[in-house]
């Protein structure tokens, strides 16, 4: 169940920090500063951040950065990280070539492939 959040309640000004240039999402090269700024632009959920900045939308699908992004967003919002719902997970959990995904087969997978 989503929590009620009034997006007009102030979370304060965006204050630049020395480590804002730090890369957080390695795949999409999104920095800490960009994430923090996005929160001040009103992106309060992991999914909104993701759609706004592409964090976790790269090849690894957030395997490395999702926890880090969550921590940054939570800190910026002033809430505990475990109160933020993570982004959704979807198939495929590993990148799959189009021609493989297209090739649905009845042939069972055997031990010796």
């Amino acid at each position: 169940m989503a929590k009620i959040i009034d997006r007009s309640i102030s979370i304060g000004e965006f204050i630049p920090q020395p480590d804002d240039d730090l890369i957080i999402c390695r795949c999409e090269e999104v920095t800490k500063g960009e994430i923090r700024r996005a929160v001040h632009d009103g992106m309060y959920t992991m999914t909104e951040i993701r759609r706004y900045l592409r964090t976790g939308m790269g090849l690894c699908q957030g395997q490395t950065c999702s926890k880090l992004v969550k921590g940054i967003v939570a800190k910026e919002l002033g809430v505990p990280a475990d109160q933020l719902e993570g982004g959704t997970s979807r198939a495929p959990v590993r990148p799959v070539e189009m021609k493989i995904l297209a090739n649905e087969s009845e042939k069972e997978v055997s031990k010796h492939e």
Partner: protein
Amino acid sequence: MRIEEHPILGVPEKGKKVLFYFDGKPMEGYEGEPIAAALRAAGVLVHRHTMKQDKPRGIFCAIGRCTDCVMVVDGKPNIRTCVTPLTEGMKVQTQYGVSPK
């Protein structure tokens, strides 16, 4: 960088020695080991340069999760070299963004 003999595991089992190409340069590795391991052993650390900032990247998780070690392998970009076995004559190229140079 190869371990000749390990105090617990003994002498590492290896496949056949094969020739492969890194950015056109011939190199030696063992068949079946991950491309990334062969490159590390040969002293290659930079696997790619990123799209936005053009920064070097290499092995990070080594088990196919983080996708940082991707390279252009036999013409295909975004191949996870840490989980892709090396084969004879393989052409491995540094990836710039999503393409070879």
